[in-house]
């Protein structure tokens, strides 16, 4: 998308310039490099955190929130311009679980005390949240979760574990779905809790990804006390909070994802000009490769317009349309296909393990020219794109049921 496609007014241009100036003045080289090196969900934590603090200081900590909680009160067009400029600047990806996921649920289901306590800490970047949903036996079948919360006076006592908790090693809070009762339907008897990570009895086990990165954890709870005042919504009604959050999870960052895809198409285009075809020419001379890249570029163009429409239609604080889930099925597959072409493009440069060189601050040189550093880590990391946040099979079931009425 381009601002010219929005029938821009002089005020729109002025807003665009203001946003662009903000990025130019505040996004450091380290932030940019952290964004560049992000192969899966999140940038190196320190850079995401410092960027959120900069956003907050400017009053743009959570522009899409309702104004009463610190939102920027932008028009749909301004939100699109913001996204376009963000695409252009590429800030590091921050931990979204607080700002984009739990915050809208706190706004909808939280008590006044909870809103007053948690929301300011999220928008300022003081609090970082992890998401405690999946368990070893409850992945796609999330509602079968088992983490026990036993009532004890004003507290719950928690025993069990959560798994695939991204960046829990950096979070100071975690929201969890826990089992408070055994009822006929497994969706009943689930409660949503807001938990401090430093509660006694919480332990982390790091889980390294296929790319060799510490992104996930298993979080163990042993007799962990959580005050009932930290319950979001009613006891045994946590599933409705979870459903609400899942709506945001499907749509959160949809446009950001498309803009990221668009960036990757450009990046791949540059790459094929730099990669050799074995006969002294470049990969660009290979029509087979070019056609495959074109197909993906078309998919990204289409997704871009569709996502822009969703953003333009969205109201601050209102849950997103289920169409987001539909778009995400394609986008995630497109994202993976782009990484597959990237890995193919760099050929034997995909063979070295370059984890050491892929840090914001590092002395380890890249094996090969600079452009070969990322394609293979992207390929490996993006395997998660059709696992995390629900498999394509689950999303297809949801779309069939909720959107198509099958």
């Amino acid at each position, binding site marked *: 998308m381009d601002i010219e496609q929005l029938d821009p007014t002089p005020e729109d241009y002025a807003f665009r310039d203001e946003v662009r100036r903000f990025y130019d003045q505040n996004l450091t080289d380290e932030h940019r490099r952290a964004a560049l090196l992000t192969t899966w969900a999140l940038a190196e934590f320190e850079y995401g955190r410092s960027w959120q603090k900069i956003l907050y200081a400017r009053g743009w900590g959570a522009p899409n929130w309702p104004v009463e909680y610190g939102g920027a009160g932008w028009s749909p067009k301004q939100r699109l311009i913001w996204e376009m400029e963000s695409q252009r600047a590429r800030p590091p990806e921050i931990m979204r679980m607080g700002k984009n996921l739990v915050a809208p649920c706190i706004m909808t289901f939280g008590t006044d005390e909870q809103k007053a306590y948690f929301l300011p800490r999220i928008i300022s970047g003081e609090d970082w949240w992890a998401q405690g949903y999946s368990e070893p036996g409850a992945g796609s079948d999330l509602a079968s979760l088992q983490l026990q919360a036993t009532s004890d006076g004003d507290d719950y006592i928690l025993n069990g574990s959560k798994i695939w908790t991204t960046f829990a090693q950096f979070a100071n809070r975690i929201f969890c779905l826990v089992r408070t009762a055994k009822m006929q339907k497994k969706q009943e008897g689930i409660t949503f809790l807001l938990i401090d990570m430093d509660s006694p009895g919480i332990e982390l086990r790091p889980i390294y*990804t296929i790319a060799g990165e510490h992104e996930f954890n298993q979080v163990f709870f042993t007799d962990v006390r959580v005050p009932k005042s930290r319950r979001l919504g009613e006891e045994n009604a946590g599933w409705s909070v979870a459903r609400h959050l899942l709506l945001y999870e499907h749509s959160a960052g949809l446009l950001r994802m498309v803009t990221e895809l668009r960036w990757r198409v450009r990046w791949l285009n540059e790459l094929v000009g730099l990669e050799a075809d074995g006969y002294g020419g470049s990969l660009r001379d290979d029509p087979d490769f070019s056609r495959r890249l074109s197909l993906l570029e078309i998919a990204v163009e289409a997704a871009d317009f569709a996502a822009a429409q969703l953003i333009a239609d969205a109201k601050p604080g209102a849950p997103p349309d289920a169409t987001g889930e539909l778009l995400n099925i394609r986008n995630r597959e497109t994202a993976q296909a782009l990484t597959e072409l990237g890995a193919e493009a760099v050929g034997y440069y995909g063979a070295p393990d370059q984890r050491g060189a892929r840090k914001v601050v590092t002395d380890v040189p890249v094996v090969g020219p600079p452009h070969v550093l990322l394609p293979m880590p992207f390929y490996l990391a993006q395997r998660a794109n059709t696992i995390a946040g629900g498999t394509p*099979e689950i999303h297809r079931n949801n779309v069939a049921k909720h959107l198509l009425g099958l």
Partner: protein
Amino acid sequence: MDFDLSDTQKALYSSVRRFFETEAPPSRLLKIYDRDEGLDRDLWRKSADLGLAGLIVPEEHGGAGLELLDLAVVTDAMGYCAAPGPLLGHALVGMALSLGGSEEQKARWLPRLASGEVVASLAISEHGERWQPDQWTAVATAGRLTASKKNVLFAADADLFLVGLAGGGLALVEQGAPGLTVREVDGIDRTRRLGALGFVDTPCELLPEGLAVAERIRDAALVLLAADAYGGAHRSVELMTNYANERVQFGRTIGHFQGVKHQIADAAAEVEPARQLVWYAAYTFDHRPDEAPRLAALAKAHLTDRYVNTTRTMVLLHGGIGYTWEFHCQFWLKRAMFDRTFLGSPSVHRERAAAMADWQIN
């Protein structure tokens, strides 16, 4: 007419598979992934005792004198196990010596290659995705070589290198030769360690028949990569099937769901019919040499592509656990990337196959 393997070949497959399942199970592979210590000499010696190092070395030089099909059967079993080790390059150097070496070179090297005492490796890849004999640029003048080569299997551990030269010539260089430098590279597929070689005025020894042999070696290598890919893809289908029969969600094993079982059936339909292509490509190498180059190209292009796709599906169907370092899916996912890249991409070989078929493509 018989398209099946012989009973001897089937027995060979089973014994090699059993050997690596015992000696290099996933727990051992994970140790190699956690801490790569280069060539596992104990495993190499044991596999050499099994006869693998000299499988296709002629009997008069201490080998078993078998054919490429037999080696492909072994490679299939090793692909199944994601077996670590330098056999691919080692066997090809032995083949090059058998086909193009002088009697003196054969007598000097082949018995020690066959016994596994000497580990050999192939140094053909050059900067700029140059893998094929007609792309090699290294030049040896008066027995001296100044060049660089990449993607050399177990470069730090090999004792003998066979280097590809401009025009398709082949030359032997010994580890430790003057002017030879070895740079090891941490690889993503840690079962087949790679390194780069630099030669500065390094003494080398030409194979008298190198030129005629280079393309044969390349074709044999393509067949072996295809065999490894078949073995790994076959294993991947088994692994996802097993997992789908184990993992319970929504009160039943996930293999009950059509969305899952159809993906596994698709993977099987992609992989299993390709087995005969590998066998036939290997068979033609020794029995129908006119057909062999094109079939080798087809097999490599097709199987390594199938392998990459199948491992992706395998990781997806395992969910979170499939995406972790500690779980075994990664061994095959990464091996598939190696097989696809090594000796040139599937596109390169599809194009070669099309050209050899003499189709009018421009």
